[in-house]
């Protein structure tokens, strides 16, 4: 999402800060760097890093992304014997014309409809400003598309294990969709009561349709609190799974924009054609509370932050991702796609 100039700048910043400060040669214990000594006991950097493994992996992934994009652009500019500014003009700016005002105002109406912009905010946006904003959005998309093109062209491979990808400490329980022997696995921790899960659902349905047979999806529960609406919806979803209709129930639940909270359970059950009596008995018995609580504990234990959290072959993503982001990661994880 960076413009080319800033990518170059960030690379300089990355090289010129932090690591350029005071450096000392660490002592080593059996090849590992020693961070701390307590008498005869040596505590290594690896011992310390285990406490912060998820965050460390996230930070490394972030830095890697910046380095990767920087390198790709520099290589492409060198290949063409042009500078980064020229490359950007050719591959991004020239391919994204300024939209018409009518087109832009239609986009603004869509943003309002999707809740991304408030009606009173939209009312203050002049057509020319709307055109500029839509243009900016498209420029961003074009930049990302160009990065993707370069990644494919240069056959990028990332060793996430080398970056310290932590193993998730989770049970393989909960509803699934897709074959158990699928080459790719996506595990979702979501609160069905929050709007971000609804945004992610759009991407999820695209993935289900596009990669049938290639991905196994597993759905874990991550309600905000034991007595929250999210916990009740999670129990309902697991009760629907008992009838083999988790996915239908979920689509009905998240597709119903008019009713929220526990009141949405019955309409979703009806829309998913559940056995209403069995569904009610399951809810009343509270059979699913333990699994919901267990899932929530797993999310906390693994320090999963965000609504939802998605793990693509164990690589965590925070928040409602779009299709392009997931596909980028899937491509890195599998040459089969």
């Amino acid at each position: 999402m960076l413009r080319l100039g800033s990518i170059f700048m960030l690379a300089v910043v990355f090289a010129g800060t932090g690591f350029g400060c005071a450096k000392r040669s660490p002592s080593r214990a059996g090849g590992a760097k020693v961070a701390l000594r307590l008498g005869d006991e040596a505590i290594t950097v690896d011992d310390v890093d285990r406490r912060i493994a998820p965050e460390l992996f996230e930070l490394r992934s972030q830095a890697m992304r910046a380095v990767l994009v920087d390198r790709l652009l520099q290589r492409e500019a060198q290949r063409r014997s042009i500078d980064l500014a020229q490359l950007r003009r050719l591959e991004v700016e020239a391919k994204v014309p300024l939209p018409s005002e009518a087109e832009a105002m239609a986009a603004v109406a869509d943003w309002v409809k999707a809740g991304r912009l408030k009606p009173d905010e939209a009312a203050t946006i002049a057509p020319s400003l709307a055109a500029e904003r839509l243009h900016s959005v498209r420029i961003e998309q074009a930049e990302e598309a160009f990065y993707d093109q370069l990644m494919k062209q240069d056959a990028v491979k990332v060793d996430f294990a080398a970056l310290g990808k932590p193993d998730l400490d989770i049970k393989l329980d909960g509803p699934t969709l897709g074959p158990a022997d699928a080459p790719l696995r996506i595990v979702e921790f979501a609160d069905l009561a929050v709007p971000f899960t609804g945004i992610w659902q759009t991407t999820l349905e695209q993935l289900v349709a596009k990669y049938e047979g290639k991905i196994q999806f597993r759905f874990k529960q991550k309600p905000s609190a034991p007595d929250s609406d999210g916990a009740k919806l999670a129990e309902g979803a697991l009760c629907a799974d008992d009838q083999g209709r988790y996915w239908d129930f979920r689509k009905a639940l998240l597709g119903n924009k008019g009713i929220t909270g526990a009141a949405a359970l019955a309409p979703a059950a009806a829309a998913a054609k559940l056995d209403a009596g069995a569904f009610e008995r399951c809810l009343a018995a509270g059979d699913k509370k333990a699994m919901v609580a267990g899932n929530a504990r797993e999310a906390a234990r693994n320090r999963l932050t965000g609504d939802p959290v998605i793990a693509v072959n164990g690589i965590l993503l925070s928040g409602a991702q779009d299709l392009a982001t997931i596909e980028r990661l899937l491509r890195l994880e599998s040459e089969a796609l």
Partner: protein
Amino acid sequence: MNRFKMSGNGMMRSLGVLAVAVAMLLGSAGTAHAWYKVKNSTPNTVWVSHAYWSKSGLGCGWNDGCDNNSTSGWAVHGWWQISPGGVAILLTQGYSNAAHQLFAHDGLGHVWGQNGFSFGTPNTVFARCEGLFTDLDIPYLQYRTIRSSACCGIGCSPSDFTTTLSL
């Protein structure tokens, strides 16, 4: 972070880590690490940058001495791209006794910043901004102060802190 799409320079810095370790050895309570995070509670993707300033000295927070691109004493990091509902780690070191400021926008006109504090970062710091805000005609990105702690000295321990962005 949208972890994979984030473009920025999240960095671990040796002195900050050392300050935390020293605080731990001196008996500070709390975790041996602290995270400064931003949560995007809007339905839009947001881009965030973070500015901070801190006094020198192991007992009084930390200062990496590596100011970049900004007013002396300040450091600026960005941009992080955060998906709806997502959380990004912006800072990973002891950030006690520091002033922190945040600028964020979602490209649809929502901006978090500009609360009147004098610190401003020239757009040239982030080439990303060139042209993006021409409609707002602002020469500087004005950051919003989000945390300023007076914690200093032995016993001072940084804690996790999350800023939530909402519409």
